[in-house]
């Protein structure tokens, strides 16, 4: 089981980053974003495209190599690109829907449609799983788990990102404004907050985090057109487990889900059934919610 722990930590940090992003967006906008998975995939796909040598790319774009294939610059540009997409989606799609007072369920269906649409575009572009152009590395032992130095760096970077998000939300003016809009859009407005700007900022930052989670996921595994969709259920589970709308809860919930998914592979009754590993994590989520409906870190509210 210990050997699965390393993989669990890695998946945990990825789900965790993606869950925080989803939770922030839900908290501020009340949108359950099914297209979150496609923004995750975009981070990985854009990085692959910008950093790969020509022959591993799409046929009709294979002469285009603007960045000289530098991996880290590719990651940065891809993450920014994801943020841009998030901003465009908010500005041209979700803001008009909000102003027209379209209901939450209708908006949810829009995000499902968007998810399908983007996923199929990615599929048309390239349906084959591909790896980032990174050299193979040998596993090394860190404390009591094994992983490649690169994956270890992903883990550390993921933890740093989490800490930064926490500091950002609690100590910066714009982070506090996001928390304010999350609690009450109207009240934030009468406190002088331009909530449209805060929502735009939330879309951009949530999408950038999603893109980064995608890069992490693809670094550890590979790039697939449906890679985001495949982990979307786990991300939802992490968000719900931690307590909907609490960022810290999403961090911890995502982490737990990621670890449980991988550690459950080592359980005796799972032998030969590793493809069912998500089931254990989701069953645990359901069990916890039965006993704590508000999630681990969700708080009951005083009704008055």
């Amino acid at each position, binding site marked *: 089981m210990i050997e699965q722990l390393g993989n669990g930590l890695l998946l945990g940090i990825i789900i965790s980053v993606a869950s925080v992003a989803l939770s922030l967006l839900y908290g501020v906008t009340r949108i359950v974003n099914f297209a979150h998975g496609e923004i995750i995939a975009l981070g990985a796909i854009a990085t692959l495209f910008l950093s790969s040598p020509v022959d591993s790319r799409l046929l009709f774009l294979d002469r285009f190599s603007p960045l000289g294939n530098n991996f880290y610059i590719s990651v940065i540009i891809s993450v920014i690109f994801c943020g841009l997409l998030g901003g465009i989606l908010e500005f041209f799609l979700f803001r008009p829907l909000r102003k027209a007072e379209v209901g939450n369920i209708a908006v949810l269906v829009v995000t499902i449609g968007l998810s399908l649409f983007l996923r199929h575009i990615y599929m048309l572009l390239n349906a084959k799983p591909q790896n980032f152009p990174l050299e193979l590395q040998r596993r090394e032992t860190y404390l009591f788990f094994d992983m490649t130095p690169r994956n270890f760096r992903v883990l550390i970077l993921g933890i740093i990102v989490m800490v930064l998000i926490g500091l950002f939300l609690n100590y910066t003016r714009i982070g506090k404004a996001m*928390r304010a809009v999350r609690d009450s859009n109207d009240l934030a407005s009468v406190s*002088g907050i*331009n909530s449209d700007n805060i929502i735009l900022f939330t879309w951009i930052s949530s999408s950038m985090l999603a893109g980064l989670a995608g890069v992490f996921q693809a670094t550890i595994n590979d790039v697939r057109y449906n890679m985001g969709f495949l982990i979307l259920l786990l991300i939802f589970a992490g968000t719900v487990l931690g307590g909907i709308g609490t960022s810290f809860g999403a961090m911890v919930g995502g982490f737990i889900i990621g670890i449980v998914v991988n550690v459950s592979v080592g359980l005796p009754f799972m032998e030969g059934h590793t493809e069912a590993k998500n089931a254990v994590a989701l069953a645990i989520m359901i069990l916890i919610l039965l006993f704590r409906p508000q999630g681990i870190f969700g708080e009951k*509210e*005083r009704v008055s």
Partner: protein
Amino acid sequence: MSNKYLEVTNLKKSFGGIKAVDVESLNLNRNELTSIIGPNGAGKTTFFDLISGFQDSDEGKVYLNNKNISKSQPYAIARLGMIRTFQLTKVFDRMTVLENMMFSASTVNNDSFLKSLAKLPSQKTTEKKIRDKSFEIMKELNIDHMANSYAREMSGGQKKLLELGRSIINNPSVLLLDEPLAGVNPKLAEEILQIILNLAGKGISILMVEHNIEAVMKISERVIVLAEGKVIADSTPENIRTDQKVIEAYLGSENE
């Protein structure tokens, strides 16, 4: 400066075929404690929503201190110094009481993103000032013992007090109070009335919507009666009590 802080002309809002608000002309005077009363569905809250930017009017103009705010967003109106409260009390649930106060205090300064990342010495002094002022107001409102509790843990009455507190921390020139006494016990209602009178005494122009007629008549200098979106009476409390139209539309005959 003219004596009027708010000028409303020909303000109209319909929902479907129903005219919710249809106010031809209404001027509110500085430092005057004015109340709006009227039956349910008279358009009181819609009127508040229209002048505070939460709803767009179909037509008409609203001037706040001679500035046209007819098309302004709520946050912009708040920054101009006209702060409103809500019928269903709103607080930032997941912030502490102190955070609620401090957040409302600092936003209007609107400092930049970069500045908020690096805490400069000047900011620390501002923050300390805001903290001191928050405590001062919380003490006046008798909620300072809850400073570090989450706002969601407060009772309904305490939330009303917090809402008042965060409304006044930025020294607004105008307060719009939407049913400040709704759902509050008689003793607390008495306290809130006293607070409102104190605020009026400090030179804040107050416009409130309230159903507690006794309270309205006791503290208001001017009473405006709305019915079916229209102003049917606008006078001193004494005159309103005896106004035949108002008695028919709202007060009922037992008030005579």
